[in-house]
């Protein structure tokens, strides 16, 4: 349902973001303690032989793929939730899925299962996110309104947060506590293609569902009643989006830990460029979030420190001031419903 003019704008924006992403991909593969020339980088990537091959294919490529995938998913989830709730402050944490996924992961770190079985941590995180959605949907009911869903999500998120605190509190092993706290800060360090394989299905399924919801999100611009009168099943839409967000966030948290603010910031940066359209903002938000997270992941490798700074810390340190600046510069936009 796009006009000719807007579709040209969208194509240009997506092309610019894709070009930026391509540059960041090269920079990400080229950044690390071992210096590699462009020729070595290409050779290592294509042939996978020698030291360059191991560095690129086993260390930097998984890291890049995860920052791209998790970033894209966070951006898409944030944009979809903001469209669903018609609230620019909405983000995945509102439904409790990231906290529940984090608790799933923390439980395996606490119990030592994470060290015994390599896939236990990500699997537990995904399971945690899935259980949180099930709990939210059961608590809110089949015909749940958005307020009920948010309240149920907040309750589940708070419960998961309390459970994480309890695990830290009860942990007899100080190394486990350190491990849990570091993991909660989020990172793409020491990730393998196994992590990519584990997260990819969740991220893809979530993204496909959310992209399909685009036209419906646009319709919601007119409010629930008008959207329903135009044939939209608003209840089903809510359930699909909440579930897709949980799957995407669960998959992301499972391999990267908790990474905040990307899903909130990216749609805000893109929205003015697409005229505030909740459908058109989906793909640009996804690309922008992938770029932001990849850039942040390059940044943590370049910052000189005794140990690598966690990416969740960087996204929050950059994200919060950026968000405050956005709020400051666009105060007028948040009260558009009160236009003259």
């Amino acid at each position, binding site marked *: 349902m796009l006009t000719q003019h807007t579709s040209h704008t969208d194509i240009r924006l997506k092309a610019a973001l894709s070009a930026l992403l391509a540059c960041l991909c090269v920079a990400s593969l080229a950044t690390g303690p071992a210096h590699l020339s462009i020729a070595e980088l290409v050779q290592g990537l294509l042939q996978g032989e020698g030291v360059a091959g191991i560095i690129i294919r086993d260390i930097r490529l998984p890291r890049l793929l995860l920052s791209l995938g998790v970033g894209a998913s966070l951006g898409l989830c944030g944009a979809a939730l903001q469209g669903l709730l018609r609230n620019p402050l909405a983000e995945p944490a509102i439904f409790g899925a990231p906290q529940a996924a984090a608790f799933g992961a923390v439980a395996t770190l606490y119990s030592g299962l994470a060290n015994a079985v390599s896939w236990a941590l990500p699997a537990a995180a995904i399971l945690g996110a899935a259980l949180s959605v099930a709990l939210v949907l059961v608590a809110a009911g089949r015909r749940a309104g958005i307020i009920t869903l948010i309240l149920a999500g907040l309750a589940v998120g708070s419960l998961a947060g309390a459970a994480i605190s309890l695990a830290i509190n009860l942990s007899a092993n100080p190394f486990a506590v350190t491990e849990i706290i570091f993991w909660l800060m989020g990172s793409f360090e020491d990730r393998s293609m196994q992590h990519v394989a584990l997260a990819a299905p969740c991220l893809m399924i979530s993204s496909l569902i959310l992209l399909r919801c685009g036209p419906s999100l646009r*319709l919601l611009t007119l*409010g629930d*009643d008008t959207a*329903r009168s135009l*044939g939209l099943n608003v209840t089903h839409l809510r359930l699909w989006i909440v579930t897709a967000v949980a799957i995407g966030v669960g998959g992301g948290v499972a391999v990267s830990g908790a990474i905040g603010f990307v899903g909130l910031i990216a749609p805000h940066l893109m929205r003015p460029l697409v005229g505030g359209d909740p459908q058109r903002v989906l793909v640009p938000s996804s690309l922008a979030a992938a770029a932001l997270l990849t850039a942040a992941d390059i940044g943590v490798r370049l910052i000189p420190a005794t140990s690598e700074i966690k990416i969740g810390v960087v996204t929050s340190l950059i994200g919060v001031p950026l968000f405050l600046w956005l709020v400051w510069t666009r105060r007028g936009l948040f009260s558009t419903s009160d*236009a003259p």
Partner: protein
Amino acid sequence: MTDVIDLDLKRVAFGNRAILHPLSLHVRPGELVALIGPNGAGKTTLLRSIAGLVPWQGRLRIQGEDAAKFSAARRAQCIAYLEQNGSIHWPLLVRDIVSLGRLPFANRGAALSVQDREHVDRILETCCLEHLSERPATELSGGERARVLLARALAVDAPLLLADEPVSALDPALQIATMQILKDQADAGRAVIVVMHDLGLALRFASRFVAMSQGHIRADGPPDSLLASGALDHIFGIRFLRAQSDGIELLAAARRQS
């Protein structure tokens, strides 16, 4: 001629509280029905029931077809609904907002067809919105936004148009312009049901009054006869005084003398 609406409603309830009691409503093509009554009479609930927005018991036929068997898209093609105090949450262009009215006819996510774009252009012209078509709808005044939402409802091009207080927030000139647009829709063969509180305006444009109170339809017929019979005085608990000026019917409300 087949009725556009053939409604036989048994009950609408929120919890244990009945909002609408058994009632029947038949509306033919070309009729502009003013749905009137005191606040809390059930007018909006009746409109929302017909639009399929609240659960209710009973039977509804649209142009002779059982609406219960309609798919969501088919229902959306048959019933255009303009809600009371409609909102626009994101700064979409006016043209894009109006285009949403064509969604029940389009493939999911597909571009508008040439015919649909032409239809949207005609509607923008009908509602005098051409000059605003490329402006974000959220930047418009309240009256302009109300016209955009009306245009969105007209864009559906449905045989039945339900409008819930479409003129309540408009200045007198826009009220008349909006009612004329709705009258033109009825004259074009659609059935139009409008919830109204301004009975003077309703008297000038509506071909029929349906008056409700306490969840019942209390009176149904031509405006002149309902006013003459005193039925409306009884329903509203006031006296309606009629006069004429420059060939225009005027209606004023006055307290009943005890």
